[in-house]
Every structure is written in C-alpha cells, then in structure tokens.
C-alpha cells in the first residue's frame, strides 16, 4: 500500500519535474521566466490582415512563451508560465479580472497539457516535434473550451459579442501561432542551446 502510494508520488514528481532540488529550481524559475517572457511580449502587436472578413491572420509571440517553456521544462513550468504570465499581464496592462480568473487558468492549462510529454532525446527528430504540436494543440483545445465556457457561463457574457468580437479573433490568432510556430521555436531554441553547450546535434 505504502509502496504504491510512493509510486504515485514519484510519478507525480517525475511528471511535474520536481524530483531533485536542481530540478525543482529549474521548473519554478523556468516557469517564472516563461511568465516574464509572456508579459514582455504581451503588447507586441504584429501586423494582421483579415481573411473572409472574420479570420484574423496574425502571429502572437506572447502566447508562444507558454508551450515552448512547457516543452522544455514540463507541465508545472508551463502552468506557471501561463497562469502567472497572463495574471501579471492583466495586473500591469488592464487591471481587470474576468470570470473569476478562469481566463488566466485557461492559459495555465495550455502550458500544463503542452508540457506533459518528456522529451529525453531532445527535439531533433520529426517525431518529437510532431508530439510537441500534438500536445500543444490538445492544450489549446482545453484552453479554448475553458476560455469560452468561462465567458459564457461564469461571467454570463452575451453570445454574439463573445463569439464574434472576442473568441473568434483570439481563437484564430492563437491557433495559427501555436500550431505553426511552436515546433519551429522549440527546435531553434533547442539547436541554439545545444550549440551553446557544444553538444553535437
């Protein structure tokens, strides 16, 4: 019984990357670093254009910080990056908490789910990158559902303005960015890190 308990505990610590003191430090600080990155990029507004009137084509570098940190440092770091990053950005730029903070939680969930796989062999294989895309998208779907649900059912927003004015632009921009750029960013950062530490690719 106690052995099984311990097993669960170890699995959890393994998943969250909290097994050693060094790993705890790396996870927490890495998560906070991701949060700071999110805040720093939050107000960067890249050019955009409209496709068929409603789809906004634009890249949003801020949101990338969340799955990228998660891919390298695991789910807890991703959760911290998303939750703390979006909360800090709100506190700094908008002074507004929506739906009891559930919107911020949805950003945390994106990071958590994107960070579930452990890429022990790095990101040089196509297989690893495909996994990055898969888990980022899974995180994004959960995030989008929580985001929309919180707006409609927790803060009781009006349906048409929520969908047309709020959710749709957020959804299209985030989807394009997360799907396309996450693997590219992860791979480049990985390669740069390897190069810096003089590892062979």
């Amino acid at each position: 019984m106690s052995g099984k308990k311990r097993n669960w505990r170890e699995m959890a610590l393994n998943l969250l990357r909290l097994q050693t003191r060094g790993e705890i430090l790396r996870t927490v600080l890495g998560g906070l670093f991701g949060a700071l990155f999110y805040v720093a990029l939050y107000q960067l507004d890249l050019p955009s254009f409209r496709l068929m009137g409603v789809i906004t084509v634009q890249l949003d570098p801020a949101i990338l910080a969340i799955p990228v940190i998660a891919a390298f440092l695991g789910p807890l770091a991703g959760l911290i990056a998303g939750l703390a990053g979006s909360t800090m950005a709100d506190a700094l730029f908008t002074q507004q908490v929506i739906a009891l903070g559930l919107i911020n939680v949805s950003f945390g969930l994106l990071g958590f789910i994107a960070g579930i796989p452990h890429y022990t062999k790095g990101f040089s294989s196509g297989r690893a990158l495909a996994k990055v895309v898969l888990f980022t998208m899974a995180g994004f779907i959960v995030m989008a559902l929580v985001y929309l649900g919180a707006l409609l059912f927790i803060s009781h927003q009006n349906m048409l303005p929520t969908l047309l004015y709020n959710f749709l632009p957020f959804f299209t921009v985030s989807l394009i960015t997360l799907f396309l750029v996450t693997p590219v960013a992860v791979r480049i950062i990985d390669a740069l890190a390897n190069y810096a530490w003089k590892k062979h690719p």
Partner: protein
Amino acid sequence: MANRFFTLISKNKLFSLFLIATIIVASSSFAFAPAQHSNPQLPTISVAGKGSFDLSTYPSLDRRVIGLINLFRDYYKVTDLSNASVNDLSMLPPFYTHYFLPFTTYGIAMIADSTPSYRTDYYKEIFHKLIAMMNSSTMERLEWIGPNFTNESYSDIGNGFRGPTNIMWTGHYTLMELFYYSVFRDGRYNGEIQGYMDQWNASLTSATTWDGNSSGGLGRWGVGLIPCEPYIVFVQCNSIPFYAMRLYDSLHQTTYQEASLPGIEWWQDNMINDRGIPVDGYYVAQPIERHASQNQAQTYPGPALTKGTSSPKVSTYGSAWAIMFYNAMGMNQLAETLYGNWKDALVHYSTDDTAYVVESYYSPSEFGVTEYVANVFSYFCTNEMGDTTLNKKLENWFFGPFEGRWVGDKYEFDTSALGSLGSFTYPVINFAWAWTHADSTLTDLMSPRSDAFFTKPYISDQSTNDGLFVYQATYDESRGAFILTVESAGSTVLTFDNFPGVQGVYSTQGAYSNWVQNGSQMFLTLGSGTYSFVIA
C-alpha cells in the same frame, strides 16, 4: 559554423515544413496588412522676434479622422439643399436616422473645432447637407407621420413635427445650427435658432399646462421638460436643448438657461431608478395606444415601464447620452455620480482588455441594432467623461472585427464581418471612430471662441480637397501667429483671409518663400509633401 547550424536546422523534414509555413504566414501578415499612414511629427519652429513655437501644444487631427471626413463628404449625396432627402441613408433603420444626422453633426463640429482657423467649404458643406437632411420631409415622414404621432393634439399648442411638442427634433435641429454658428460664426441659421430658443422658453416658463392647469413653475408639461413623443418626456432628449440654451447664452450673453433649471431639478427627483440611473421616459399624461400596448401595467403620470415587468425602463444609450451632455454643460458632479452608477449597472468586461454594454440589464442576452447604438453612445460618453481606460476597452471590443484601411485619401472600417447588419453599422462605426478621435469635446464646444477670433487670420479656401490633409490650423491670438500643419498630394493653394502684412512663413528649415500677399489676403502654394509652418 553557420553551415553546421544550417544542417542542424534543416535535418528534419517536419521542421522544414513548419518553418516554411511560419515564414509564409508571417510574411503574408506583413504583406497583406492594410497600409497605414503615420501622423506628422509636430516640430518646434523658431521665428525671429517671436521666439519658438512648439506645434505639439496646439490642437491637431489624426490622419484617419480626416480620412473618415473624406469618406463622409462623399457619403452625403444631397444635391438640392432646399429639398434634401435622406434616401441616401436608407440603410439606417428609420428609428435611428434622427440620431445619426445630429450626432454626426456634433462630431463634425468637434473635428472642425480642432482646426478652428480652417473654415472653408471643406467642413461647412457637410453641415449644410446634414442640416438640410434633418429638415427634410423624409425625416418628418420617418419620425412623425410613420409612427402616427400626427393624431394627437394639445389644445391650442397644436401638434407638429417642427413645433413645441417635439423637443427631439427641435432640440437636435437647433443645436446642429448653433454649432455651425459657433464654429464658423456664419449667421445663416440665426433666425431659426432664435425662434426655437423662444419656443422652448415659452414652453418651460408657461404658468399653465397644456390642459389648462397651473404649471407650478414647471411649464406646459408640468415637469420642466418637453416631450418628443406624445405625452412622454425623456432626460436625454431634453439634455440637447438645455445644452443649446447654455451655448446660446455664452454666445449672446442671454439667460435662456434659467428656464431649464426647474426641469433639471425635477428629473433628478422623479426620474432616477433604484440603481441611480435616469429612467428611459416618463408619461406626463395617458399614453397613446401605441405606447400603452407595450406594457399593460403602465400607469400615468409615472415612469415608462420595461416590457413585461413593473420596473422602470432603462436605456444604456439614453443614459450615456444624457450623462455626457450634462457633463459638457458643466454639471460635473451630477454627471460623475450618474456615470459611476451607469458603469456599475451596464458595463460588461468581456476580456481583460475589452468591454461592451447591452441596451438594458433587463434583457442581457439580446444583441442587435439597439445594442450597437448603446455601444456607440457609451463609446462617446466614456470619451467625454475622460475615462480613457474604459473608452479604450470599448474601442478594442467595438472595432475588433473591423479592419481599418485607406482607400486613396479616404479611411474606412470594413464592416462586412457583420453580414447584413454591416450595412447599418458601416456609417455608424466609421463615424464613431472619427467623433472619439477629434481634438475637441462637447465640453470644449461649450466655451465658444470670442467674436474677435473670427476677425483674425483664417484659411478661407483651398484650390483642391483631393489629397489635402489639414492637421493643424490655429491662429494663436496671444502670440500673433498662424500654426499650420498640412499634407498635400500635389500642387495646392491655400487662401488666407484677414491676414495683411505677413512677414514670413517659417518652417524648421527657415523661411518658406512660395507665398504672395494681396491686400488682406495671403496665398500659400504647396507642392507634394507634408509641411509644418508658423506664419506671422
């Protein structure tokens, strides 16, 4: 080394695929993003003997505001001012045309007031057209004959669309004309303005009510307010003539505003609901059938009730409109209190940086034309109240789905995302942005410039409007200098009147020589480019 890095990057196919896709999307978002033009930098210009002029301290217009004016100049297709038609605005639902015309005029007054010494047909023509449209028989049909308001009669007062029983039309029409006088000091409408001032004054100071009782100092309708639909008075509709009376008083040193004081007291005592917001209408007598059928429980005298409830009606747009006009009249404390209540009751924070309003908290799930109107008025009201945070959130939300773009020298927000609703919202959404980005407010317009200012130098004509952007045109009376920032697409001649003995046209690069003096007129010739000048 770079080679090795390249191999490392290109080694896997999936990565290459995503990289290429990212590059395509990123570059297309740069390539297809609509071109924007930045506003000119406003420099400091030194003039020998007069010191230096920091142009950024003078009012200036955003290029997009002028681009939107260019859009609207062509949008009103009135050719015969004596027989105007609102058919060209037929995409607006009839109910809102009589808001759209006056509120557009108020916005254009604020925009024209931002370049107060640029007084050519460029702005004046729009006023002439809007005023003519407001006075058209089409308007009368939409607003008075259509809803059957013609059947009512108030003993000897009679009943008429342009008469003392319709403050909605007379109030707006007079204020449109009065702004024209105030901004351009052109007296062509003064006779009509005077007539309506006297008409309101008679209504508000009458010792007997329309049905022959003592008015108790509250005028013909016994409440200090004037109706616009039969037997119902609104706080917002009466805010327009009350504002106009004050503006008229400061232009002509009269005391018309005194007649408004009992009514302002009265509605604060009788027309505020349990959440501290002005209610949407008060019946002073038995409602006509059209009104009574909206709520079987309706009693009179008493506040208009929300459909299906016994609670007084609230209107986000109506109360936003009233609040901003009371604030602009200088009743800031009253306006601030109402504004706080209004925000608490009606604003929805959609996300951390967006917000919107619904028209009534009794029907929070509706969203249609009325809700657009509510959001536009809220956008104006937050701007007038100086609440930049909420104004920005409403703007982020409201303009979110619409792409702003340049088409030649016109600017527009594309509202096609709204489908069929887009044709109604197009003029409203486009105009709303221009109004909110003028460098003047209703409060500013309440303190008109002195008559003396209109004897000072001003631009009276331009050789072309095409590609001409007048960002700044202010005569600084105290320093005796004309401040001008202008963009011209080709060769343009600006005519200045009241400007004898010009010493020179100065820019940051020294004196500009392409101008001639002719008596009290001065002609300035511009080539293609953007110029900032101090002319003294």
